[in-house]
């Protein structure tokens, strides 16, 4: 996907986001944009504020100032659970599956925003609630098949190997058919082979979906991203294609600085 910096019409953008938590400035005037139909990476050393950007976008953290725009429209009062209605889905660091529900039930819940029937209809088991759930179930199974985890549909998350759990979590995010997908460290804790699969998978979603990726594994980021934003200590220090970012001395300094400190 082609894009030109500065971005003219990003599908998702943050404008001058500032976040302070317990007296610490976590994000300082962060403005990033995600062009439609791209895989955009958000990288930076530990504590740079990457996940906080995700949390601001998904409404878990309220910024002190700044705004979020989706399709050019400013979002007011973001509620995490309304995000999928806007066509945005996210995964959580680690796995974040519901341990007491089967893999399939987990994935089905990802489509909650599609469920229209209320609690009274559910309480009386009205036939259309069954239809609704049957549709959702079919969708969930289709996505699980796409990700190669359909055979684990009936298993509990605790019984599944970690990479499979991550797949199921990914399926849960996909089942709402999001336009924008926020992936928080999808490659965390998985093997090199699985990582190659993951890269293929992510690239297969664009340009239909737009992906924002927070990831530590540089190989993955460099392989799949069209555009990369680099955060350090809550500030944007660089942006551009993987090649540009790789050669940016500021980025190098940020990562080396951390290595030196560690």
């Amino acid at each position: 996907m082609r894009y030109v910096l500065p971005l003219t019409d990003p599908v998702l953008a943050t404008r001058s986001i500032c976040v302070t938590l317990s007296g610490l400035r976590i994000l300082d005037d962060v403005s990033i944009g995600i062009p439609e139909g791209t895989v955009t990476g958000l990288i930076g050393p530990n504590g740079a504020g990457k996940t906080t950007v995700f949390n601001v976008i998904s409404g878990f953290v309220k910024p002190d100032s700044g705004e979020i725009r989706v399709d050019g429209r400013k979002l007011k009062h973001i509620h995490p659970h309304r995000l999928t209605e806007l066509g945005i889905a996210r995964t959580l660091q680690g796995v974040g599956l519901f341990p007491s529900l089967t893999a399939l039930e987990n994935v089905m819940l990802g489509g909650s925003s599609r469920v229209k029937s209320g609690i009274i209809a559910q309480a009386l088991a009205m036939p259309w609630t069954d239809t609704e759930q049957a549709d959702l179930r079919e969708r969930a199974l289709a996505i699980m098949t796409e990700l190669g985890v359909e055979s684990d549909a009936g298993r509990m998350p605790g019984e599944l190997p970690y990479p499979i759990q991550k797949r199921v979590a990914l399926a849960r995010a996909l089942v709402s058919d999001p336009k924008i997908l926020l992936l928080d460290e999808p490659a965390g804790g998985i093997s090199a082979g699985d990582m190659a699969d993951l890269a293929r998978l992510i690239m297969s979603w664009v340009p239909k979906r737009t992906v924002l990726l927070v990831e530590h594994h540089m190989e993955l980021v460099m392989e799949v991203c069209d555009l990369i934003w680099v955060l350090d200590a809550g500030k944007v220090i660089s942006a551009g294609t993987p090649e540009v970012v790789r050669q940016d001395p500021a980025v190098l300094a940020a990562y080396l600085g951390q290595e030196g400190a560690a």
Partner: protein
Amino acid sequence: MTSFIDYLIGGVSNGAVIALMAIALVLIWRATRVVNFAQVGQAMFTTFVALTVQTVTGSWVLALAVAMVAGAILGVIVQFLVLRPMRRADTSGAIIATFGVLIALQAAVGMIWGGDAQAYPQPFDNAGIVAFGRIWPISVYDLVVIGVTILLVVALSLLFTRTSIGLAMRASAFNPEVARLSGVRVSRVLTFGWALAGVVGAVAGVLVAPSSTVSPTTFDILLVFAFTAAVIGGLDSLVGAVALGVFAGLVISLVSGLSNSGNAPVVALILLALSLITKPDGVFGHHKARAV
């Protein structure tokens, strides 16, 4: 106006007892992140132990001392029962376990000492002190209650600020991992916290007993008041527990005095609900950002 002030003064000793019970709740919350709803059951048990000792020996001080020891032992036992579900991260289970202990302790008290309300002998003069040409709504006994409470609060604050065990307790509450790495034997420190809370609760029980009768469930209402005080204070704050405990005592005394003592639970409920609506983490508590 006179009666208003009288009720306020009279409420202080009430408040002192609520504050002590609130401290016991806060001590355990800080140590183990559990609200020990069994605390009043423990206090009731130790109060009956004290009643027995006092009936036999006639010594109030000895009775108090025995109750404190019993309180410490009970505290350690209850901790043992609650820790396991906590380790499983079953917070509902831990809360339920404390209620199980409360039910069992109340039944045990009923079995051993009977379910009837019993009078606890008044160890000091309970008549209003006469001075400056009027009768004050405060007795020698009230002064003892207030005095013991102040003593205990001062002792606790010295313990926390001046002693190594106090420092270890604070460290373990603040960050158990770091404390463990710096050589603190966290589990022992936590157990000490439970024992300490048991002692404080036992003192509260013995102090409050003479002002009413004692029966297995007399202290239920004290639990609600103490919890209200502890929660409004922020559950983490000893200062908050003391301040709000005394405040709760004053409010209850005013409400009971000016209207009807049966209204006190309703007032506690309203206070609790209001404080939880406006500030779910307490007035003195620090709001921590949730990790996502």
